[in-house]
């Protein structure tokens, strides 16, 4: 058993490693392509060579960043198969589709038009070059759309039904998968927040030039575009963030409880603005959950259910159950999950022994159109994944990691808004060069952008443990049965390769920035 736990942890670690490295490069790609397209449009309209130089410069940085995103991205796609093979079968019927669509629709588009964007300056018409550059922006955001639909489906498995004959979940409505409220929110939140990271990247580089008193035209114009782009994105992030939190509250209450460190549920719950958790606290003891906290009254209830008086369940409610609020205990869910697993086994036994009478009888339970089916699917199969668990405690994610990630992300998000506004103000007044402190802040802001962005994924992914598919499959049932040492070896190899590439990328990038837009050659 310990072997299995260790295998799951290393497999998760490998996936997290790949995803986190990948996510250093992706947010910049998503937002920078749009800003580059805006700059190129300015050049196309004005014919001003300064805009051209500027566009070329940011394209250079973009492509250096982009290739590492590609290198890490290919691994992610295949890791579903290599390390989560049971998962790949159990939900491949749904999950494979968005990945394939991403490839067909987005990857070719990105790759093809990036080639035009980079090499096309003198080889194609100005108009075609401009259109291609916009298509790169559209293509990269489209690819984000499909992979985020896939991720959203893991958090909220919509549009599917379980087929006992094939022992897997099968898609019954593509639009329910693609347009589920979780998918829509996830896409909007992940992209708009990425635009902020990209805006901070441009601000950071531009700040450096202003501090060095170099390339002033480019630095100021870039900063202006980035600050406006960042501010608009930030305002959108407030809404998409709120939407995401609402979806979490509705579909993944345990994640929300962990985000807030809420052990005992309550009505008229306040949202913790700042807090320090008591590290000794867990579900098994009566310690106080917080050393210290400042709450905004009613806000958590409002965010969760759009009603300040509503009840928000805590970790204890979700584990031990709460009759008053119709929450089943974890043990009850586990028992029901075991019934579901057993029913499936009976089905398979009947199929093997050609017991048609029994087979028809059990089949009805899996058919949503029969009365038995409706009962069984809603009361038992719904908890299928719980049947794999041994102890209710396995249902509690890492509270501290989820809590701090969530709060750091949100706090930074609000600080970025402030930063964008102040920068915009001074760029407007044309006195930004003199605001040394602000420029230093701008220079380092990108680091915090990365932190906030990564924290967002930690909340989303750590907060939903132990599930790989919410309520249907825990990671422990999904993992490929390799030896621990095998996964450890690939983990180390990936860590070495990715780190090397990151170092190379940063050195090349810094060097390119130091040289500036006037000197492109090597």
């Amino acid at each position, binding site marked *: 058993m310990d072997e299995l736990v260790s295998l799951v942890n290393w497999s998760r670690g490998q996936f997290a490693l790949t995803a986190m490295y990948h996510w250093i490069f992706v947010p910049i790609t998503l937002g920078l392509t749009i800003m580059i397209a805006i700059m190129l449009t300015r050049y196309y309209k004005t014919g001003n060579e300064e805009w051209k130089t500027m566009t070329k410069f940011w394209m250079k940085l973009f492509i250096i960043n982009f290739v590492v995103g590609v290198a890490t991205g290919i691994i992610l796609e295949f890791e579903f198969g290599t390390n989560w093979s049971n998962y790949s*079968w159990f939900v491949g019927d749904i999950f494979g589709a968005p990945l394939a669509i991403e490839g067909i629709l987005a990857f070719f588009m990105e790759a093809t038009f990036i080639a035009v964007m980079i090499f096309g300056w003198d080889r194609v018409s100005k108009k075609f070059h401009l259109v291609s550059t916009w298509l790169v922006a559209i293509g990269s955001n489209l690819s984000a759309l499909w992979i985020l639909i896939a991720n959203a489906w893991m958090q909220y498995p919509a549009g599917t039904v379980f087929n006992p004959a094939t022992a897997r979940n099968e898609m019954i409505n593509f639009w329910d998968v693609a347009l589920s409220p979780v998918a829509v929110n996830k896409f909007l939140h992940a992209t708009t927040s990425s635009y902020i990271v990209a805006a901070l990247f441009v601000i950071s580089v531009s700040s450096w030039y202003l501090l060095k008193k170099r390339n002033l035209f480019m630095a100021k114009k870039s900063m202006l575009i980035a600050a406006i782009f960042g501010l608009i994105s930030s305002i959108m992030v407030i809404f998409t963030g709120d939407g995401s939190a609402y979806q979490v509250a509705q579909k993944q209450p345990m994640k929300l409880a962990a985000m807030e460190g809420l052990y005992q549920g309550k009505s008229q719950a306040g949202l913790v603005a700042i807090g320090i958790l008591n590290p000794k606290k867990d579900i098994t003891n009566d310690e106080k959950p917080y050393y210290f906290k400042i709450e905004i009254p009613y806000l958590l209830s409002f965010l969760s259910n759009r009603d300040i008086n509503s009840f928000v369940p805590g970790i204890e409610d979700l584990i031990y159950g709460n009759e008053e609020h119709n929450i089943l205990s974890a043990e009850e869910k586990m028992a029901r999950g075991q019934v579901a697993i057993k029913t499936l086994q009976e089905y398979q036994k009947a199929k093997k022994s050609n017991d048609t009478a029994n087979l028809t009888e059990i089949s009805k339970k899996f058919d949503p159109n029969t009365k038995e089916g409706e009962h069984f699917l809603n009361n038992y199969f719904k908890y299928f994944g719980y049947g794999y668990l041994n102890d209710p405690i396995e249902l509690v994610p890492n509270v501290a990691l989820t809590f701090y990630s969530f709060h750091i992300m949100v706090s930074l998000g609000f600080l970025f808004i402030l930063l964008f506004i102040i920068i915009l103000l001074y760029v407007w007044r044309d006195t930004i060069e003199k605001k040394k402190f602000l420029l230093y802040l701008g220079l380092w802001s990108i680091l915090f952008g990365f932190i906030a962005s990564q924290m967002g994924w930690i909340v989303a992914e750590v907060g939903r443990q132990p599930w790989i598919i919410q309520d249907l499959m825990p990671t422990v049932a999904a993992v490929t049965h390799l030896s621990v040492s095998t996964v450890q070896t690939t983990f180390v190899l990936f860590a070495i390769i990715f780190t090397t590439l990151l170092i190379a*990328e940063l050195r090349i990038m810094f060097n390119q920035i130091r040289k500036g837009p006037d000197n492109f*050659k090597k």
Partner: protein
Amino acid sequence: MFEQLSYNALQGYWWLIISVLGAALVFMMFVQGGQSLIYSLGKKEPQLSLILNAIGTRWDLSFTTLVVFGGAMFAAFPLFYSTSFGGAYWLWMLILFTFILQAVSYEFRNKARNFLGAKTYEWFLFLNGLIGTISLGVAVGTFFTGGNFVHNDMNFVSWTTNWHGLEAFANIKNLLLGFSIFFLARILAILFLMNRVDDELLYVKSKKQLLINAAVFLVFFLSFVFAILLGNGFAVDPTTQLVYLEKYKYFNNFIELPWMGTLFLIGVVLVLLGIATPYLKNKKLETKGIWFAGFGTFFTVLALFLCLGYNNTVFYPSLVDLQSSLTIHNASSSRYTLIVMSYVSLLVPFVVAYIIYTWRKLLKKKFTADEISESDTAY
């Protein structure tokens, strides 16, 4: 419109798409073939830069096709995805590692302060050209020769050897295909360079290299074809769905589906024609070999893939439990998903069209040494 098709027809249609992607992938591997030639054709400058720039402008072609091939497999035949990727772990990891290296190397190679030095990135490209092609060939070889897996009641896979994919390298047929793909990729690269690059010295050297590579390729490829056609194949009974070994199964497929056999033969002839073009005394055709050999490769590989999926054949046999073997019927997605994906597949011709369109616009001019030294976007 796809709703009218039967489940079997949809599975057949999706196997066709997988086969088309597989065939396109091998054609596009001229990129890897070119990378494997940098230490022979590109020993000196400007030839090295010419090769890397001619190929590097579109290095994404094989990379992206590989990713889409994986995605399409996942969507249409998820049981293959879970079985082979999870089981033959090391084989796929090896392929992936070399493709990570490829993705950054073109861009990073000639940049200052690139941490590892230009030579290392060139070596990465070579590695991808060598290991990437051979391993992919070996992986495709296992479609014929099988893997060591069983499925339980949940269709979850267990691999019965601890080698997890490395055992595929011990199978001679897999290796024959691996080396065939490697040398074929080099042939395609040479023909591509002859077509794209205007450099007398490179052309002369290429012509020499072409002969050697073609000879070695033919030895490997013909051995593979004979080994496959004259050996046992894995067949499935369409009524009972039971898998059994059949003598000359793959040969029989080509005979029983004559159009497939014809496709295969046309493909092989075109490849040979492509190889021969530089030696024909015809100024017009001299540099057009890539088109013959490229489409020849496409048809040949297409026919080989189709031969695995059609005519009641197993496309991924299990060596330890025949009945765990994969056919396009037991490994596929649900009818509904296949219909959805079929609509998506209608976009493929559109994608191909814009790729060709941009390619033509972008690569109107041939690559010359002067141009590269003046360009600020050169690799």
